[in-house]
């Protein structure tokens, strides 16, 4: 029996690292959903099983080296989400680890996003969509963003969009606005049925939000 246990343990020791990727090595799965089939567990961090659809690789790498706060109030399933609590910062990685993690994360995809145009908005259209962002759809109540003067404003229960243009892929933004249930079963954000033209302009507007534009 003792021999059997030793053999089993040895087997585990030798087999686990051989199949494990860097995401597993770093224990990312203890807070983040990494597998599509993992629908039962409640995670305390954002889902990453579609990271390859959602993020821009360069941003991902920089985030892993020098994490920034995206959700000032925590993630939606975090028990401390309401009311606000002080959250521990995300762990930072070495450049080498960040490269490996970003590469693996970019390989996690669940769908083929519909390609959208990333053509910049004219000044007039940007003003129009910014107005809709605040008034027609009320996005600013839960999301921080930048106004036309480059000032940060908005609520904190949703992820900050101040750096959305560097963080997110335009195709994913459009997909999320159109069919968020593809990615997350239960959200705290209202569903919107935007006309295709509005969806296109909204996506392009969100992609103009970049932290280097803060004044």
């Amino acid at each position: 029996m003792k021999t059997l246990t030793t053999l089993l343990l040895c087997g585990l020791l030798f087999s686990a690292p051989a199949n494990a990727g860097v995401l597993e090595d770093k224990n990312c799965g203890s807070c983040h959903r990494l597998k599509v089939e993992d629908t039962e567990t409640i995670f305390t961090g954002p889902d990453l099983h579609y990271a390859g659809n959602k993020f821009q690789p360069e941003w991902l790498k920089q985030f892993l080296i020098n994490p920034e706060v995206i959700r000032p109030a925590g993630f939606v399933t975090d028990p401390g989400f309401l009311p606000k609590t002080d959250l521990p910062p995300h762990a930072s990685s070495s450049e080498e680890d960040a490269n490996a993690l970003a590469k693996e994360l970019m390989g996690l995809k669940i769908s083929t996003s519909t390609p959208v145009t990333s053509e910049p908005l004219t000044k007039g259209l940007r003003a129009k969509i910014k107005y809709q962002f605040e008034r027609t759809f009320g996005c600013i109540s839960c999301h921080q963003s930048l106004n036309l003067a480059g000032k940060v404003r908005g609520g904190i229960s949703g992820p900050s969009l101040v750096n959305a243009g560097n963080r997110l892929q335009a195709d994913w933004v459009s997909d999320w606005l159109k069919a968020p249930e593809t990615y997350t079963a239960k959200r705290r954000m209202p569903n919107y049925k935007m006309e295709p033209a509005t969806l296109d302009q909204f996506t392009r507007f969100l992609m103009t939000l970049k932290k280097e534009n803060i004044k």
Partner: protein
Amino acid sequence: MIINYKLLLTGIVYLAILVTACGQNEQATPAVKPPTQQKAGEVIPQMPQLKPIQVTEDTRQTYQWYCSQCHGVKGKGDGINAKFLTVPPRNHTKAEYLETRTDEQLFEAIKFGGLSVGRAPCMPAWGQTLAEDTIHSLVRYIRELCDCEAF
């Protein structure tokens, strides 16, 4: 005289933004009723039928999940977004105000957003997210929080 319509339109949009917005440090009361999510043809043709729907555990959970982000866990208007909004979220425990709003008005505010009933645009439309029965039960829950009625 050649009128630059594009410039004129941009000017109007800027003016509208100066006059009305939902963010901080800006005026909350719209001078002109701005567009809502509904198309002109879709504007509620008739008052929704009020149903005698009860508050259930689901109602409370729905309120906690969605509404408390701004209105607070106990409905006192002190949710985590509250201090970032120019127009403070409604305190649902204040009968002084809520007894001046009918159930229909509360229903419409939830379903079509604050602007649809002449209130702040910070309150988005939940009609694409919540079923009508759920919205009716939320109205009942607000009545429970304010301990008041208005028909």
